[in-house]
């Protein structure tokens, strides 16, 4: 018996899928540069990360401007929140600087082989290297920033719990 026209069409469809799936798997296992896609170099990730820092800093400045333009009430929550924003901004500057300096440091500037307590920043201790070294203590900025954020949120919670309906949001 010969297949009908519909049966022939279904057969062609199933046969197509069966042929496409192995092709996709094959191509996934053997990646090759596609000429239609723009290929970037190695520093791209670092640049994106640094631009993200800049973007984050700009957002913080923007938020601080809003708070300055339309200052909320003088409650402790907003004071802590502003402290947190300043510290986050400084942390951004610091990390940006560290990323930038890190890219400028030669490979021999850091000795990170062997036991961890033997790692050190090699001489000569130039200004850049010193800035890099002290800039690595970024948590001295980020931890207080988050700490003030916690304090501000806790103050807001207490206000909300006390039934203060309008804390003077900007």
């Amino acid at each position, binding site marked *: 018996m010969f297949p009908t026209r519909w049966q022939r069409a279904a057969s062609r469809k199933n046969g197509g899928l069966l042929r496409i799936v192995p092709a996709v798997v094959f191509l996934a296992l053997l990646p090759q540069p596609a000429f239609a896609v723009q290929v970037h170099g190695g520093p791209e990730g670092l640049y994106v990360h640094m631009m993200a820092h800049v973007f984050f800093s700009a957002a913080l400045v923007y938020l601080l401007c809003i708070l300055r333009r339309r200052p909320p009430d003088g409650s402790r929550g907003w004071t802590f929140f502003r402290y947190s924003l300043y510290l986050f901004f400084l942390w951004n500057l610091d990390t940006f600087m560290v990323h930038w300096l890190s890219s400028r440091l030669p490979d021999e500037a850091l000795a990170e082989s062997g036991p961890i307590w033997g790692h050190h920043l090699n001489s000569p*201790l130039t200004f850049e290297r010193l800035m890099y070294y002290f800039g690595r203590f970024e948590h001295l900025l980020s931890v207080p920033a988050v700490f003030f954020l916690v304090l501000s949120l806790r103050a807001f919670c207490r206000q909300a719990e006390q039934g203060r309906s309008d804390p003077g949001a900007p």
Partner: protein
Amino acid sequence: MSSGLPLLPIYLVEFWGSCLMIALSLAAFRYARRLVRLEPKRVIWAYLFWLCMALVALAVSRGFAHIVRLFLLFFNQPEMWRRLAPYSGGLNSITFVAVAVLTFYYENMRAVTDRVRQDARTLARTNRELEEAQGKLRHLNLNLEQRVEERTRELALSEQKFRHLFEGTKDLIFFCDENTRLTDLNASGVALLGYDRKEEVVGRPLAAFFRDEEKWARFHCRLSAQGEVADFEADWQRRDGSPLYLILTASAIRDERGAFQGSEGIAKDLTHFRQVTEQLIHSEKMASVGQLAAGVAHEINTPLGVILGYSQLLAEDFAEGEVRETLAIIEKQTKVCKRIVSDLLKFSRNTVAGEKRAADLNGTVEEALTMVEHTLNLDHIYLQRAFSPEVPLVSFDAERLRQVLVNILTNAHHAVGTEGIIGVWTRFNGHCGEAEIVIGDTGPGIPSEVIGRIFDPFFTTKGVGKGTGLGLSVSFGIVREHGGRIEAFSPPRDPKVLAAGMQTAFHITLPVEPAGGEG
């Protein structure tokens, strides 16, 4: 030890800082979530919540990345860290961007929220204003109902007041339509016009009640032209034809275009007032005439006595012949003159006290009737008596009162001619303290233009030589001397007298002095 700066402090700060970052960011996330749950409608809390979410991601990512890196460095596996570092950095970049996007977007979201909040406030204010307006409307509605009730009550009171005035007044109040037909009038008006029910009067033309057409025309013309008529004197007639003297005040009712729609008015009955006034005028006239007559009579009486005396003396000298006849004529006419003068003196003798004593009025009336009854019966005129036993003793001069009664009965005889009835009533009015004698006859009646003059001296309707015109004048003087009054009505005012078929009625009213007085 090599020269340089050890990295171990950095590692220690990184390790403990990362741990603290993770812990603090989790705490911040917990507070943010609590805030959102406490006040879910606040946009700022939503923003902080998402900000904390991004920071938690950042802290966890960086914290764990640092810790893992330190571990890998500790175990001397820097190569493995170099493979993981891009993932950590990428994740950190995403969180930075997320925080930035949230921050930039927050302002727009806040603006939208402000707009929504402003709209909500406007809506709330509008709703509040609407509720206030609704409240005012409800209050107004409630107040309106109260005001309507008050006005209705006031109107009802006013209507009741004017209804009482309309129904209770003794004056005639009437309403007419545009054709001057009566549409409504009060009960006093119905009674005044001699009707029993209002329905008998309503619908009749107002002109029908005017005795004088010319007066009606003048009244209607003035009402139509001027819109009101004040103190208009008019003679109306009752249902039985009796006169009614009214003072009319009326005003026209017009629609908004000024078209005559009808009229309303009030009429005051002054019939009795006019009668009293006329009687007063008549009394004054009679008094004046009496004084004049007394003077004239006194002056004439002496010469007449001389003429009579001398004529009688001369008559003795001439026993017979033409002179004797002439003297007889002189004596006769002189006696006539003396009788007239005597009557005039009787009429005017108001200062001469008669012999009054308490007597039975019914008995005196009966005596007078007895004197004339025979003569009356000859002309088929019969007497009808209706004496009230309640009449008490009255102080009067019986002789003179009999003269009054005979005078009136004689006049009634002349009026009836032959075949008729003369009715005599006596009654006592205890309220006024008056006794009354009514003498009616079935004669033709006295014309209205004459009835006001019948008590005038020398006024008579009889032919020449048949009457002197002094009978009623003398009677008037006698009754007045007794402190009473004498009135004539044609047709009779008293329904009983009218019902007896009388056409004329004379009312003699005498005061009844209290017991223990004279007599």
